[in-house]
């Protein structure tokens, strides 16, 4: 007797679906180009201006998070990859094929999340290391550089990849909740860009209390070797971001279970 519809078979199906549409390929290319391109731009500009920078900036300079700066732009691309993986099923109607093949809806969510996590984690980690090494190569000789031999540096580079992976899953969870690509991308972008602007308009004491909870602030904390005092430590920031993703995924899964397809 053949095996049942397991998480493994559902994941194989989701992997075929994930790699067989252009939007996935384009999303990954955009992620790679943004991360490498913006990071190259930032590091080159700093190298060119290093001698004219003020002493305080030079003293607090973090060669690690600066070289990973492109990640904070690529986060929009990875969110779209995650969101489209589910919203395109609704816009095309293929969600009906998916659920007719695998009626256990939580298994569908788990299979999709697994495919997203594994593929994005591999790409994002390789990308983070390449970006970091590229940045240090650009800095070399002029700007102080960092080495992966230092524990905190290695942690920052790894967490940059983890950050992108978690944001992909956040986009996916929002997609489960909202079901529409446009709505989902709008909300995702607002969370990353508009919320910080609103927080910026609040009184200073409130800013200090709230701004460290913004997803992009958590990302900066994860990527820096020594986060500033008003930010969370890298470990705490990672945990908080995981909680965000988990809450969104649980809400999305409950809605996915209850709604008609």
């Amino acid at each position, binding site marked *: 007797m053949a095996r049942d519809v397991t998480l493994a078979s559902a994941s194989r199906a989701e992997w075929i679906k994930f790699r067989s549409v252009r939007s996935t390929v384009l999303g990954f290319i955009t992620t790679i180009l943004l991360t490498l391109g913006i990071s190259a731009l930032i590091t080159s500009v700093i190298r060119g201006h290093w001698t004219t920078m003020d002493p305080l900036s030079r003293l607090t300079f973090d060669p690690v998070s600066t070289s990973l700066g492109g990640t904070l732009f690529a986060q929009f691309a990875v969110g779209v990859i995650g969101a489209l993986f589910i919203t395109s099923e609704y816009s095309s109607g293929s969600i009906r*094929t998916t659920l007719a093949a695998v*009626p256990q809806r939580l298994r569908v969510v788990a299979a999709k999340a697994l495919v997203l996590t594994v593929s994005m984690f591999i790409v994002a980690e390789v990308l983070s290391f390449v970006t970091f090494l590229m940045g240090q190569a650009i800095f070399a000789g002029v700007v102080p550089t960092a080495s992966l031999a230092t524990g905190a540096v290695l942690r920052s580079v790894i967490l940059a990849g983890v950050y992108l992976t978690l944001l992909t899953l956040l986009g996916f969870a929002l997609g489960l909740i909202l079901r529409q690509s446009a709505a989902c991308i709008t909300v995702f972008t607002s969370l990353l860009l508009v919320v910080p602007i609103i927080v910026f308009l609040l009184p200073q004491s409130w800013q200090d209390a709230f701004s460290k909870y913004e997803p992009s602030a958590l990302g900066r904390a994860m990527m820096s070797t020594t986060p500033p005092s008003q930010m969370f430590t890298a470990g705490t920031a990672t945990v908080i971001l995981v909680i965000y993703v988990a809450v969104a995924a649980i809400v999305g899964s409950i809605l996915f279970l209850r709604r008609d397809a």
Partner: protein
Amino acid sequence: MLKIEHLTKRYGDVVAVDDLDFEVTPGVVTGFLGPNGSGKSTTMRIILGLDRPTKGRATIDGRVYAELRHPLREVGALLEAKAVHPGRSARNHLLAMAASNNIPSSRVDEVLEFTGIASVATKRVATYSLGMNQRLGIAAALLGDPQILLFDEPVNGLDPEGIKWIRDFFRTLAKEGRTVFVSSHLMSEMALSADQIIVIGRGRFIAQGSVDELTADVAGSVLVRSSDQERLAAIVRSRQGTVHDRDDRALSVGGLTSDEVGEAAFAAGITLYELTPQRASLEEVFMGLTADAVQYASASTEVPRGA
């Protein structure tokens, strides 16, 4: 065996399906006939576990869809609304379905060949014509070689050759002992392709039977041409019959059998040129049965003119 058991589905205040209760048996083509918006697609979606019924259930050999171990191997479905990502190729679409139900990928090539889309299988579905999309839907339904097949409005978008093909195809599937459940709003199509017909309107069960049984229930009319049409019409009316003039100088008599009309004419000394019992067409039966149940009825066929 597909069983619909007291199925009810409400969307807010709208009752899409209202206490439907029937069985679809293997070995015959069962038509599911109703006007647009009568709840056919909703019923199909509930069978597949896509929509949750408000009350009742649909079972496949006693189990609801979510309990099937390999759903695609037990139930195949062609859904009316497109259910394919336009950016994916037909082959990848089917490969993903096959992977989820542990169906070998060689089966994908088989169904692609069978439905005649193997040559375009690696092209993006967005480039397909309506007919090619239908063929892909049929390929997807057959993928798991299931015993129960659901087709929601399958002839939409098919050319006459394709329609002929799909009718024969339904017959073949039924002859193999499978359960074939085909929805349509076209009674003429159902009359040709279905052995058993279930008629619904506004989500409610209206009638079930073979084409012959459904048409036999409705009294037919008698077509008469004679030497004295006016006198014959008067006689028919005096015997409580109804008379409609037809364009070709014939009378359409209702309420009397052909025997009664013939005897009446003979007694009155009228010569009959033609006396033809007219069976009610499935179309007339359908219109009669669903007259109250059409959701979006048109007032007339006259196109409103602007001022």
